[in-house]
């Protein structure tokens, strides 16, 4: 997978978090995985079709999600992931994807990328695979907590 397709997704997380006042976002290790598997409480996943095909997911713990949602809502404390919190989480996913697609479209080989609406999965010990595309997993350390970005693109 070419790095030019990966950077936009990492950069967009950073820029969206910074919009909400979460300033420090550093990139951890990049791991290659056979399948896109994560063990986290919340996963937001977006499918892409067009000139960039595949799936991108963002996964975090419940605590990290609450921190992010709280920042999105001007510091309002978030006790539980109720309907409003989930709606904020969806918005977060939409914003990241929209920004990433904006940068992807500036690549020469990319004329059209269509995102499918994000699906957000909440629960305990969620295990996910995106078969059968090889996946890159990138850990982001942020002031709100760890975010694991999984990118499985068919290119």
């Amino acid at each position: 997978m070419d790095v030019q397709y990966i950077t936009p997704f990492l950069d967009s997380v950073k820029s969206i978090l910074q919009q909400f006042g979460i300033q420090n976002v550093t990139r951890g290790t990049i791991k290659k995985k056979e399948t896109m598997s994560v063990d986290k409480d919340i996963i937001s996943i977006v499918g892409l079709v067009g000139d960039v095909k595949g799936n991108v997911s963002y996964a975090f713990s419940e605590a990290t999600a609450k921190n992010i949602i709280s920042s999105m809502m001007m510091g309002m404390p978030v006790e539980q992931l109720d309907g409003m919190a989930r709606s904020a989480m969806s918005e977060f996913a939409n914003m990241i994807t929209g920004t990433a697609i904006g940068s992807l479209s500036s690549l020469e080989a990319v004329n059209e990328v269509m995102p499918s609406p994000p699906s957000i999965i909440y629960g305990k010990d969620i295990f996910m695979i995106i078969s059968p595309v090889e996946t890159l997993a990138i850990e982001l350390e942020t002031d709100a907590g760890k975010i694991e970005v999984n990118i499985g693109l068919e290119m």
Partner: protein
Amino acid sequence: MNPQLTSPFLESAKNMINQMASVQIQESDSFQEQQDDIASYGVSALVTFAGVLKGRLLLDLEPSLAKEIVQQVMGETYDDMKDSTFMGMMGELSNIIGGDALTFLNNEQSYNLRLASPAVFIGKEMIISIPKIQSATIHCTSRHGNMRINVAFEKGGVA
């Protein structure tokens, strides 16, 4: 949502699961608009598709039914649902059911729909939320457990 868009997914699910695993599933209601988030039965397979229309198929199964299907197809029992073969088989199931339904829709309406890679989730107390898209759900039963089929089309399936 237009039943012409949803009913092929039910027919394909019934036919493919029967062909692949000799398991009969039977709908217990009709497709209803999905208003809220979905509380998962435990095993979910999700596959998106795009062409003239964009949409998504979600199959949500009780672990007992998922295990029966995988066992029938693979000829082996999997106690650990995190096994990559188990989860891969659930992905393949959604691929085959989705592919069959899209084949029908493409032939009827020239939608030129193509499938993306399936994603499979397992977990406890999972809630699946698909914001900003219209979807409809139908519930099904079988001797081995329940499942639901949720079909979403952007803009309600209007090209």
